[in-house]
């Protein structure tokens, strides 16, 4: 990342979105291959629906209502079926997932959310390996850990947080050790 993102510290959604955006580049640098299936299916549903609406508009505009109404009926029905499918996909399949990726046969799914008027980042990590039961880890941590006073994103502590939260990452990287010793010294003081 060439530049450091800056957020409005009073906007919770900005804090969350920026944090979410930082996950994929870091995991990519660690050799994870991101799966875009969830997003691609959503885009496919959405843009198909929009294409139907666009064609309906064009046909209705050129042929007139009376001539077009036979196909308009089918287009309207198809549009709302697709729209319902899209809504269900976003609510029940995508949900809060912000990252799905794989490395060496280990698949990790990260979901994040925030709660109203609360400066905490909630991260849920599901690790699954074929043949074993999926492992879930939940973490709740303040955004102040990786946003400085002016709202600039600080990479190092965030990487360390991911290292410590995602079991599939070896905990013995320099960043993780740094955070642990930082916590220890904080406790002493």
């Amino acid at each position, binding site marked *: 990342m060439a*530049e450091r*993102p*800056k*957020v*409005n510290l009073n906007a919770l*959604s*900005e804090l969350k*979105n*920026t944090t979410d*955006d930082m996950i994929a580049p870091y995991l990519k640098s660690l050799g994870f291959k991101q799966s*875009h299936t969830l*997003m*691609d299916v*959503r*885009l496919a549903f*959405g*843009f198909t*629906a*929009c294409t139907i*609406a*666009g064609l*309906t*508009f064009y046909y*209705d505009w050129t042929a*007139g*209502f*009376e001539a077009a*109404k036979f196909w*308009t*009926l089918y*287009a*309207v029905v198809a*549009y*709302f079926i697709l*729209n319902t499918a899209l809504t269900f996909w976003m609510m029940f399949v995508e949900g809060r997932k912000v990252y799905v990726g794989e490395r060496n046969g280990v698949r990790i799914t990260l979901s994040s959310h925030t709660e109203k008027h609360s400066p905490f980042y909630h991260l849920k990590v599901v690790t699954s390996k074929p043949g074993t039961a999926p492992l879930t880890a939940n973490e709740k941590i303040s955004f102040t850990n990786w946003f400085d006073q002016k709202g600039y994103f600080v990479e190092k502590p965030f990487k360390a947080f991911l290292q410590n939260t995602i079991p599939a990452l070896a905990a013995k990287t320099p960043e993780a050790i740094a955070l642990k010793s930082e916590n220890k010294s904080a406790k002493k003081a």
Partner: protein
Amino acid sequence: MSLLDSLGLSELRRLNVRQQLSQILNFALILATAFMLWKGLSIATDSPSPIVVVLSGSMEPAFQRGDLLFLWNRNLDMNKEGGFGGTQVGEIVVYNTGTAIPIVHRVVRRHKGETTPFNLLTKGDNNNADDIELYPHGQWYLDREKEVIGSVVGYVPFVGYVTIMLSEHPWMKTALLGIMGLLVVLQRE
């Protein structure tokens, strides 16, 4: 680049292609859904324009400028026993005979035509004479099926005045559309 920064929108530059497409999709879906809802209502009522705004005072005191009217256009029958009670004397219909704007007037006379199955004569409550002068040259009646776009079945007073404002001051329309579009593209939640 620097323009985005000075507007505080540097976040947009960081989005990847999928995220950008998703932002565009959000905006497109709003337009598409509004259009398809309108078309769905058109199909249900069988009217090319199921909601119209009263533009003149010719039906006062029943309707004022700016009243929003809901139309129903499946009552093409002459008889009361026919489909949906037919179109009767005393009903208010909206018709469009190729003039720029549809006209909202009351049915005062009905007859069966030589070439057309069902004809109407209309008059504005607030006008001194009937509508023959408003019909195309040499035509003494309205063709219920071809020229009328529906009977008024419901209304909401005054709320349509916004559209009168927008059509009388076109810059308002441009400004409104621009602001809404910008907001949707720039917001992520």
